[in-house]
């Protein structure tokens, strides 16, 4: 019967009661309570079901090491599964649900697993469910998936607000206990920026609650003094409710700030910290002992019993038994005895022990039995009685003691997770029975220097006196190593020297437990890993600790083995008959404590997910009903549907408007790279496959760019502005890539070339005006002479339209008479509107990227990315004319000579006309010749101009197959037959574009 004391509880504010619901029941707690302490106050001991056998589970600890009390908290879009009840503060009208049971917590159908638990030993699922084969997919797996998985599933989108914050600090202190505070005080006023992260909502850690009732005042005074110092000093900044969850290379540290009561709107923030030196004061976690039936609700770690008593004024039970193998746990029973709680017996596993704290317990009249432990625990869903047996025996019960709570303490495990995340090694301390940081193999920083120092309990130093004595010394050594010259820090040690606490490393009691008892001795409470499971793993040859972990799923639950790893390693060493330090330990991995996936996404979700680049004409496009298409990071207008038009109707209208009248295309996303300098021509000759240095000023030339392996990766028109500078246009997706490509060659290979390049992609916007009436439209503005003589094809002039500076290129991607107008981006919307207004007379219409694709496909022009997929050479595309024979070197030239790039088997670009005019070949369909694929279609459209379907494709030695008919396999049954032709379907001589 857990209950609330009338007074007591340093963390709770008794004036403010908080209502919350647990599994439909309306309960009350106080402000400052955690969900766990509030549940205990309302006598809710049995709160969960274990993962595999669905055994009843109770609250076992008071911190992040909690394996059992996982709850579903919140409602609707704020619902979160698998929350540790011991960590989350109570909030008004909070809805708490237990999980992993059906129909209810008390009557869980799947607890029958517990009855047949002998058939479900470790790894049983590897040995069965194999027959019949299909049964795994339709019967066994669905059944297993329903039974497994803990939390329920959030259904709605997440309203929570997450934030990422960068922070740089010289020193990061992890943990605000005695060691952390002393380290901070020792390091201040040395010109170092110091950050201290404490996972709790108050500083101080354990040492305030640990002191004897006598010297409470002195501890409080020391603590108040320290807090003043920290608040006053400018170079220390402290962050509460912030758990450091991961240590990465070069001092990169992740910390998770979760503060339900934070005044700011951000409740959850991920701190990305870069620290030169890290001081680990992460403390230690108490370890349970392994005895029969040790998983019943009502069994709790000794320190947590005391935590709930002193911090929340909550009693686990009024008849409590302690089983321990160390002195530290006696403080719990002494505190309880002071409050008049009945302690029937204390079972100490050691043969004998006599130091002040045990004497104090005896004086209070507590019966202490040495060399004894718990042989059996009675009670179905709650502890009702224990059976005492001797430590070395087989477990026969000597005496039955009725009680309703058991405090258990098997010693302390230093918190070495963060030490091990990034290279730190561990040493097995056989004398105390735990792993502690190895001073020789420390985590290293960028220059290989030791960048982490472990102090206090996480380094195996538990007594306050030793901490107060060692920390200043270690900090001074660190300061001298970091060559920080300043006064040595000394502080008077107010703690009394305690006798060295001998913890005899015992993990499993009774030692000679019979097989039946071993089947009920649990090591990992959440995954139901029993002592017998580990013995089975060792027996079946899974001797490596990593094998044993994976075979038995020990320490793979949401608490990642914080209370079970060391016990598991000891049992494995006993089963294999090897000393414990020969077994080693499994790898510690971030995060130290689970963090929400939404937090990892941070503020870069929803609206801010993946930036969208918008062209200067974006607003006009969205006003005119454009459908968007993501192209690299840009969004481009795919088509401009009108009214109820289907997509085909829109595309046909746009294509015909360009073929008959005139169309406008927003081509601003085209890459524009200025290449200037005396050696500009030489650089372009090395980059493009054709000669660029011979280009005359005022003229343009189409160029193809290959990589060193000889494959086409970009193309575009190069215009020569004057004798010193060229303007190279690239594909939208290729703009930044080509700019980086040129920078790489100039900086790392040809740094002797005198060339300067500037990425002007967004300085200019580019508008294509294409169609038979294009010239009339442009000349409507001003009497600029755009006749064929004045401005021949592939030339450009600079002029102005309604005094907007513009550079007009005669480039045609659509095959029509076409001009591309480059204009400064700030004036491009103004120019576009002028063109639209002036073009009304000529029935001008905007056309999108899909219409452009159809137009250029009709001309047989390639698009890098459709016709080429990174394995296509210029020869494959039938563009031998663009590969210069004269140049002795350019990128890709060597590759063209490789055997495979000249083999006859290569696929070549051809035009494909289906025999049935209206049948459009499906995207990417393959040509098949006696069962083998000999090529595929790269672009396939219905051409409104030619009133038939057209396609381009890459077919094995396609050019020599001109005129023949091939079979194309479509996804449906029947194949489509088509003739191989020359890829240029419309105006092959190019009369229109040269007009």
């Amino acid at each position, binding site marked *: 019967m857990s209950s609330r004391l009338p007074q007591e509880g340093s963390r709770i504010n008794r004036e403010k009661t908080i209502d919350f619901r647990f599994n439909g029941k309306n309960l009350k707690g106080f402000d400052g309570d955690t969900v766990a302490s509030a549940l205990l106050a309302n006598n809710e001991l049995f709160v969960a079901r274990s993962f595999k056998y669905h055994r009843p589970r109770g609250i076992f600890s008071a911190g992040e090491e909690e394996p059992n009390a996982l709850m579903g908290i919140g409602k609707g879009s704020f619902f979160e599964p698998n929350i540790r009840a011991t960590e989350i503060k109570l909030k008004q009208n909070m809805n708490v649900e237990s999980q992993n049971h059906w129909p209810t917590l008390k009557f869980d159908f799947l607890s029958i697993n517990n009855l047949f638990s002998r058939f479900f030993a470790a790894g049983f699922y590897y040995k069965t469910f194999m027959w019949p084969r299909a049964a795994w997919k339709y019967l066994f797996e669905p059944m297993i998936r329903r039974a497994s998985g803990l939390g329920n599933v959030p259904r709605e989108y997440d309203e929570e607000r997450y934030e990422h914050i960068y922070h740089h600090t010289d020193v990061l202190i992890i943990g605000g206990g005695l060691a952390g505070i002393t380290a901070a005080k020792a390091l201040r006023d040395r010109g170092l920026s110091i950050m201290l992260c404490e996972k709790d909502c108050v500083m101080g850690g354990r040492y305030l609650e640990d002191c004897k009732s006598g010297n409470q005042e002195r501890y409080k005074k020391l603590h108040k003094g320290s807090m003043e110092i920290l608040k006053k000093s400018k170079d220390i900044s402290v962050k509460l409710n912030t758990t450091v969850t991961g240590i990465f290379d070069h001092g990169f540290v992740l910390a998770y700030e979760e503060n339900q009561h934070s005044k700011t709107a951000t409740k959850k923030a991920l701190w990305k910290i870069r620290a030169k030196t890290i001081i680990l004061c992460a403390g230690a976690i108490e370890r349970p002992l392994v005895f029969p039936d040790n998983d019943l609700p009502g069994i709790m770690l000794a320190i947590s019993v005391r935590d709930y008593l002193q911090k929340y004024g909550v009693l686990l039970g009024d008849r409590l038994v302690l089983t321990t193998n160390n002195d530290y746990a006696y403080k719990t029973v002494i505190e309880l005895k002071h409050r008049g709680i009945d302690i029937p017996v204390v079972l100490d596993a050691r043969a004998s022990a006599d130091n002040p704290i045990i004497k104090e317990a005896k004086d209070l009249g507590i019966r202490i039995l040495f060399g004894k432990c718990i042989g059996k625990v009675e009670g179905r869903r709650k502890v009702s009685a224990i059976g005492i047996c001797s430590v070395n025996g087989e477990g026969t019960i000597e005496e039955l003691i009725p009680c309703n709570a058991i405090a258990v303490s098997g010693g302390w495990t230093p918190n070495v997770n963060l030490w091990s995340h990034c290279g730190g090694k561990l040493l097995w301390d056989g004398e105390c029975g735990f792993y502690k940081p190895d001073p020789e193999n420390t985590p290293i920083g960028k220059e290989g220097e030791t960048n982490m120092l472990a102090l206090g309990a996480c380094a195996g130093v538990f007594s306050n006196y030793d901490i107060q004595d060692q920390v200043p010394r270690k900090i001074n050594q660190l300061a001298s190593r970091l060559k920080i010259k300043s006064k040595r820090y000394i502080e008077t040690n107010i703690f009394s020297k305690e006798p060295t606490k001998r913890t005899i490393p015992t993990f499993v009691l009774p030692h000679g437990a019979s097989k039946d008892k071993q089947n009920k001795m649990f090591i990992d409470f959440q995954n139901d890993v029993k002592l017998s499971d580990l013995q089975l793993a060792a027996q079946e040859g899974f001797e490596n600790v990593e094998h044993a972990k994976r075979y038995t799923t020990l320490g793979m639950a949401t608490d990642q083995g914080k209370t079970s790893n060391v016990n598991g390693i000891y049992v494995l060493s006993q089963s294999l008959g090897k000393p414990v330090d020969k077994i080693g330990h499994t790898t510690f991995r*971030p995060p130290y404590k689970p963090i929400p*996936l939404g937090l990892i*996404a941070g503020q870069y*979700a929803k609206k801010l997910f993946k930036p969208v680049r918008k062209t200067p004409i974006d607003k006009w496009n969205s006003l005119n009903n454009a459908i968007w*298409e993501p192209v690299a990071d840009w969004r481009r207008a795919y088509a401009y549907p009108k009214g109820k038009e289907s997509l085909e109707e829109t595309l046909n209208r746009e294509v015909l408007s360009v073929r008959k009248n005139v169309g406008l295309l927003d081509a601003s996303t085209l890459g524009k790279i200025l290449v200037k300098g005396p050696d500009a021509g030489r650089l372009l000759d090395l980059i493009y496959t054709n000669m660029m240095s011979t280009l005359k000023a005022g003229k343009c030339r189409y160029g193809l760019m290959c990589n060193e392996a000889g494959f086409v990766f970009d193309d575009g028109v190069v215009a020569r502005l004057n004798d010193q500078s060229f303007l190279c246009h690239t594909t939208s997706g290729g703009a930044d890539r080509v700019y980086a490509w040129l920078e790489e060659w100039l900086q790392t290979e040809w740094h002797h070339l005198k060339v300067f390049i500037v990425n002007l992609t967004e300085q200019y916007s580019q508008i294509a005006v294409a169609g038979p009436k294009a010239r009339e439209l442009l000349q409507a503005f001003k009497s600029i002479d755009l006749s064929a003589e004045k401005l021949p094809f592939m030339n450009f002039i600079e002029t102005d339209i309604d005094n907007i500076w513009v550079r007009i290129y005669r480039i045609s991607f659509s095959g029509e008479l076409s001009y591309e107008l480059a204009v400064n981006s700030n004036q491009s919307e103004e120019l576009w509107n002028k063109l639209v207004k002036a073009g009304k007379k000529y029935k001008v219409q905007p056309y999108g990227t899909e219409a452009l694709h159809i137009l250029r496909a009709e001309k047989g022009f390639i698009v890098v990315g459709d016709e080429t*997929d990174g*394995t296509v050479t210029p020869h494959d595309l039938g563009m031998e004319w663009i590969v210069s024979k004269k140049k002795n070197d350019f990128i890709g030239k060597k590759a063209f000579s490789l055997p495979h790039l000249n083999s006859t088997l290569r696929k070549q670009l051809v035009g494909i006309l289906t025999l049935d005019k209206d049948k459009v070949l499906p995207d990417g369909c393959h040509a098949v010749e006696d069962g083998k694929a000999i090529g595929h279609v790269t672009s396939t459209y219905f051409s409104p101009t030619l009133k038939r379907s057209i396609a381009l494709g890459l077919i094995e030695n396609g050019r020599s197959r001109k005129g023949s008919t091939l079979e194309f396999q479509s996804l449906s049954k029947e194949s489509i037959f088509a003739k191989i032709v020359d890829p240029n379907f419309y105006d092959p001589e190019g009369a229109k574009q040269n007009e």
Partner: protein
Amino acid sequence: MFYGKSNLWYIFFELAKQGLIRENKILKRYSFSSIFTEAFRDNLGWEKAWAKHQPKKEYQIIIVGGGGHGLATAYYLAKNYNITDIAVIEKGWIGGGNTGRNTTIIRSNYLQESSIGIYEKSRFLYETLSQELNYNIMFSPRGVLMLCQTEHELRAMKRTSHANKINGVDTKMVTPDEVKEIVPIINIDGPRFPVLGALWQPRGGTARHDAVAWGYARKCSDYGIDIIEQCEVIGVKKKREKIVGVETTKGHIKAKKVCFVAAGHSSILADLAGFRLPIESVALQALVSEPIKPIIDCVVMANTVHGYLSQSDKGELVIGGGADGYNNYSQRGSFLHIEETVRALVETFPVISRLRQLRQWGGIVDMTGDRSPIISKTPVDGLFINCGWGTGGFKAIPGSGWATAEMIHNENPGKLASPFSIDRFLEGRLIDESAAAAVAH
């Protein structure tokens, strides 16, 4: 009530313990009946899954690398060509490298014909592997969905679906609504990257990665193949460019044929043997969420935003993403890729935003120039190599083992392995799987 002395259940339990149920001698067959028998004998009857050996002086074949590919190679050498004088030597613990670190996805919807050959052979072998190895590897053909989120990617996937149809891989294109039906929790409306369709392979899926390694090891040990752990190769013995044996931390072992199957560590072994490989070892990271009830029943891959996701049988979401950009053997990657992948998946599956990351880890993957593997002879006579699987090795374990065994036995690569020789780079005959999706017009 069940533990009392006098009731019926206890009598039945005692009778069973007296060995009323027959015990069989040969390698204990794993089956429900054997579990039932052992349940009444406190499971003391199970033998070692694979025997522990110290290395003999000489073997006919040495496989260096005790991961999935190495063990599969040894298994198929024994099964297809009944050669059993083999040693599989592993520097750490078997299945401890990439086999124990991947996101367990199995699919064969590749573009190039040679890739389809080996990955479809693997998927086909996976279908019956549990029965063949008598070890439940939990092959779950739950379906793999490859999302198309740009027009360009949609065209590339359609091309792949056609290539699959011709080469006998059962895949089909599905519309956005069908995608929503298959994965109800998906957000297909973007707005940043609306889902335009997907390539659906119904017989792709997942398997339990550890079980694949242990299953193969158990059968190999049954055939009499020596599996030697904690035995690292520190030298290669050659006589006039012919391999004669390897120097290990457990002494010198002679062999007529040696095959390196060491993934990320292949370059180090090649260096010992005096030649270099066209691969770079980088860290590839993955993470799991806390276990929850079933929310997604198939594997979803989103290449445009670099993230893929499936749910393990225990209920954890298994999430993987892109590899690091720099050489790294530290089995730790940078948080940058975890962030990029999780951000993409939270955008694609908004409900997972409140689930918590339980654990992240990294493996060392060996990336080749064209992202396709290397199963090939080497400049050293009698020395073969199987590496270069990069981020896609798990799905190829059975097929790769089959092809490598064929190559070692015939001393020449067979139909499956021949496209993947090292000289393909020399001739420019790249098998490029990454190209189709890479270039945006």
